[in-house]
């Protein structure tokens, strides 16, 4: 039994995939807190689809996935932020327009110039097969960068998220902070997409913070809990996906969904919370 559980660790691709999945889970759990408390869960779905357009374009142009999809994703994130701030359009509508157009463009590019198959499926549902040492290094660097931003910018980020008007009145440059957060969201999605896939990354960004919210009323504790839950789901889900011989994205998400069910059963929202919902 133990031997069977440890068997995949003999493969380098699995070890790399496991590191990336665990870090991606923690990273998505961390940045997902800011997304969930802002009521912007739809953003995660939209941004990952927008980045898919960049994924297709980078494949077509023969440039690095991280470079092509990264530029594309950051541009989409800033476009959403800009449209939302300057026009009387809700964030959900701005996300709907910008990201579905980008996703559609990606599908067209794949249809005209690409080829559906393994890479297409991997982009949609995640795969550990292509996880290289470079992928590991990239996600380690991005994770450290995001932890530094969240740690050193804790109060400005919290103030801007909770009460942007008073934060601005208190001298914070809230427009820049909002833009920084959008870039953080885009980069985090980008480096996590490889193992989680376009269609399922939203769950990794939303489920751990939602579980953490059920367990605490404290913002700082929620950040820590959500990261830990995300990492645990990534680790267990990756192992599950190997043993069930399914893609990594569904494996991780199904573990997270199961964890949510347990947390929800144990910590049901109180009457007051339900009334406020």
């Amino acid at each position, binding site marked *: 039994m133990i031997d069977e559980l440890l068997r995949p660790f003999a493969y380098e691709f699995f070890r790399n995939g496991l590191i990336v999945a665990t870090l991606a889970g923690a990273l998505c759990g961390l940045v997902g807190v800011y997304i969930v*408390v802002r009521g912007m869960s739809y953003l995660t779905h939209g941004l990952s689809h927008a980045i898919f357009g960049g994924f297709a374009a980078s494949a077509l142009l023969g440039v690095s996935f991280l470079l092509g999809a990264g530029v594309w994703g950051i541009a989409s994130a800033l476009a959403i932020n800009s449209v939302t701030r300057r026009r009387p359009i809700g964030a959900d509508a701005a996300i709907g327009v910008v990201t579905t157009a980008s996703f559609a463009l990606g599908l067209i590019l794949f249809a005209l110039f690409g080829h559906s198959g393994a890479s297409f499926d991997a982009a949609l549902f995640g795969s550990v097969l292509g996880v290289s040492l470079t992928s590991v290094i990239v996600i380690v660097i991005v994770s450290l960068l995001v932890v530094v931003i969240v*740690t*050193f*910018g*804790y*109060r*400005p980020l*919290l*103030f801007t998220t*909770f*009460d942007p*008007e*008073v*934060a*601005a*009145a*208190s*001298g*914070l440059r809230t427009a820049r902070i909002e833009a920084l957060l959008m870039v953080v969201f885009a980069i985090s999605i980008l480096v996590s997409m490889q193992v989680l896939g376009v269609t399922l990354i939203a769950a990794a960004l939303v489920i751990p913070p939602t579980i953490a*919210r059920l367990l*605490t*009323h*404290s*913002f*700082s504790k*929620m950040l820590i809990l959500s990261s830990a839950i995300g990492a645990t789901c990534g680790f267990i889900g990756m192992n599950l996906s190997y043993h069930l011989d399914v893609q990594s994205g569904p494996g991780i998400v199904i573990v997270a969904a199961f964890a949510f069910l347990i947390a929800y059963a144990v910590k049901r929202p109180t009457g*007051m*919370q339900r009334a*406020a*919902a």
Partner: protein
Amino acid sequence: MSRPAANNDGEPLVRIEGLGLSHDRQPILEDLNLTVEAGDLLGIVGPSGAGKTTLLRTITGTLRPDQGSVALRSGLQIGYVPQVESVDWNFPVTVRQCILMARTSRRFAWPTNAEKAAVSEVLARLGLDGLADRHIRALSGGQQQRVFIARALLRSPDLLLLDEPTSGVDVALRHELLHLLEELRSEGTSIVLTTHDLNGVATHLPTVACMNRTIIAQGPTSSVLNPQTLEATYGASMQVLEHAGMRLIVDSPDHTHAPFGPDLDALLESAE
């Protein structure tokens, strides 16, 4: 817009001259002049859409006027208390975290010993002892209002701006809040608040400004709150009644008004 800072200590805290601001070509503020002196406890009243919140936002600098100037005294620290209706009460934040976020000079989550002491002091000052680790939703209405005042006070402001602090609160809470503001003023914090509560202003605040896109009158409450100014502000006739040394403002059903309104005692006697 110009935001020059006045340098002399004898200068007003805020001097607004010829302020104009539009949104989608609709004027919100027009040729508005207002002065806030050190030690003021000023209520700004006016109908919905009069531009009261917009005026506060121009003072905090979050809105840039199209015309005119907002001059703040050099080094002026402003504390801003938003309408509690705008707060997301489900947000995962404790009272301590809510108050500390205002200390933006430090960026980390964990507070210094000096900050812990400052939070304890402001919580005690506002009667919120022992609530530091409560979620903001798990507080009474009055406590919730005071948490946001505490957050503003943690910045040691010279001027406290409150947007509709009496909105949606019952009589006891309103009384408690206005007394708290009087105490803060006596301790040296100048205060400007917007409100729809004309009777609260008439009873508790020494100075008032009536506005409807521009300042119609500013000065001592006893002289500004008269039927003519109120009609010019609200576009509706109102009576100002006197009873036991207090002023009461009521709607006038017949659209007629005496220059200063009848005495309430006389009115009650005549009714008997």
